[in-house]
């Protein structure tokens, strides 16, 4: 068998195998290469079959009939067409023009071998076509799955973008609330400072009140001393009146009245003194309470100041968080757009894969028909008994 005759279909089959291998390793474009290889192999096989059927079979029929009739026409009528057929088939006729029956048989044998090669290659191509069809179907499933996953990813990214925008809005409101809280704390600090000044002023006034009450106490002491001296004076007057007997009776009455007045004054001053001491005690306690209140106010002011500082830090952190959330939203929108593009590309790939599968199915049908034709060709050639082993 000539190597030139099997080179073309062999190369086509090799190309198909290479493409099939690439498909197995995941290159989607290799399916086109597989289809091209299968088509080239089929074209080569068709050419071989057509050449064999067009040139060899009529000549063989005529040679068979002439041989059976043993007529001289055999040499004239068959020599030219057979030679032409053999020449077309790549078989060179003898230079002397003699065409013995052995040459015909050799040609038929060659044809039979070619037909057998065609049948074998057709079966190989059919197997490769089956593999390619299954690979195309698997590719179609994978592409559909990838498209669904891409759609889910795009939907998830859109959801993330929506959530990020909601978070951005929440962060914005949190920033506004924190700003308002900072303002409130500032107002509270001002109020606390004003309260502190008021408490300090009140403390001073209460101290002055205590000092005034102390002065009142001193005056009350003086009045009390006067009352005591008046009482002593009334007592002495009363004793003198008593010593005067009846003559001092009226004076004794006056002295007793003076004594009662002095006692009343003494009681009143004693009561005033008690009240003044009570005022001094309460003023002292109030001053202590005010000092404690001032200490508490200072502590509250410090805590409020710290709270304001913490709120300002929170405000800054929240603003930074809002910026990050806006960035996430923008990135999510961008990725959602990219996913939509990928989804569109996946749809196109899916359509192409579907078309490829359809083409491969049709090619498979044609290949089966080609195999059947090759088998019939082998059977037809086999009637000459020229096939090896027949």
């Amino acid at each position: 068998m000539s190597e030139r005759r099997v080179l073309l279909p062999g190369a086509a089959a090799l190309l198909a195998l290479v493409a099939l291998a690439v498909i197995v390793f995941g290159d989607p474009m290799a399916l086109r290469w597989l289809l091209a290889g299968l088509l080239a192999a089929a074209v080569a096989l068709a050419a071989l079959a057509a050449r064999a059927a067009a040139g060899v079979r009529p000549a063989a029929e005529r040679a068979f009939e002439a041989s059976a009739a043993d007529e001289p026409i055999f040499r004239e009528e068959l020599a030219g067409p057979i030679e032409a057929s053999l020449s077309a088939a790549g078989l060179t006729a003898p230079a002397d023009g003699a065409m013995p029956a052995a040459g015909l048989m050799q040609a038929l044998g060659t044809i039979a071998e070619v037909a057998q090669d065609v049948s074998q290659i057709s079966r190989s191509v059919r197997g490769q076509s089956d593999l390619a069809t299954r690979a195309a179907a698997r590719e179609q499933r994978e592409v559909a799955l990838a498209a669904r996953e891409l759609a889910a990813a795009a939907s998830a990214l859109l959801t993330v973008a929506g959530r990020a925008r909601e978070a951005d809005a929440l962060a914005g409101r949190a920033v506004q609330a924190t700003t308002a809280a900072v303002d409130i704390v500032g107002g509270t600090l001002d109020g606390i400072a004003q309260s502190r000044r008021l408490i300090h002023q009140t403390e001073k006034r209460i101290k002055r009140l205590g000092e005034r009450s102390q002065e009142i106490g001193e005056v009350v002491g003086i009045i009390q001393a006067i009352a005591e001296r008046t009482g002593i004076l009334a007592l002495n007057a009363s004793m003198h009146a008593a010593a005067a007997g009846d003559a001092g009776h009226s004076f004794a009455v006056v002295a007793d009245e003076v004594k009662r007045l002095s006692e009343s004054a003494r009681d009143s001053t004693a009561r005033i003194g008690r009240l003044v001491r009570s005022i001094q005690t309460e003023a002292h306690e109030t001053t202590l309470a005010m000092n404690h209140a001032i200490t508490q106010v200072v502590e509250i002011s410090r805590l409020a100041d710290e709270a304001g500082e913490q709120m300002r830090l929170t405000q800054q952190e929240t603003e930074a968080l809002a910026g990050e959330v806006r960035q996430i939203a923008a990135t999510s929108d961008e990725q959602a757009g990219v996913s939509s593009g990928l989804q569109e590309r996946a749809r196109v790939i899916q359509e192409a894969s579907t078309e490829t599968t359809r083409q491969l199915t049709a090619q498979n049908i044609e290949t089966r028909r080609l195999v059947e034709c090759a088998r019939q060709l082998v059977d037809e050639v086999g009637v000459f008994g020229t096939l090896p082993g027949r």
Partner: protein
Amino acid sequence: MHAPEPQAQDSPRTRRFGVRIDGLPVVLPEGLLLEFLPRAVVWRLPLAPARVAGLMQLRGHPLPVFDIGRTIEPGHSHPAVLIIGEPARALALIVDEAPQPVCLQPPGPPGSAANGDADAEPHADAEPSDTLLRALAGDFICPEALGDARRDESDRLWWPLDPAVLGASLANETADV
């Protein structure tokens, strides 16, 4: 110094003045000139007898001040003093407090509980203060100057004091020293 009036001449409702001397309540005779000085200025006299607290002046008249109970503390020069009698011949005594008017109950029969006889034995249900006062009266520097204990309208015990007897006793005691 005026002589004390007899106890029998006291009218039941007579207004008299009483004072505490070294814790003992004594009532002074009626009609006697009295003057109380709550913070008298007393100058101590060196080498003076123990009962003599010092010397004071009353409207230009120097007066010796007697401390019967020797209650005045060294350095305390402003005691409460009761002047008894005319300033020129008065007796100045250191007292515990200011005098007060006393209305004594009418005197009962001798030895009765109503008049609170100082010599009588105290009753079992007597007030503790009465017992203490009777003990003070028994320890008085000049018992002969004290009369029989009497009660006032508030049922408090008072011992009538004869200033003349007391003055004489103090003068004799001072002269002996």
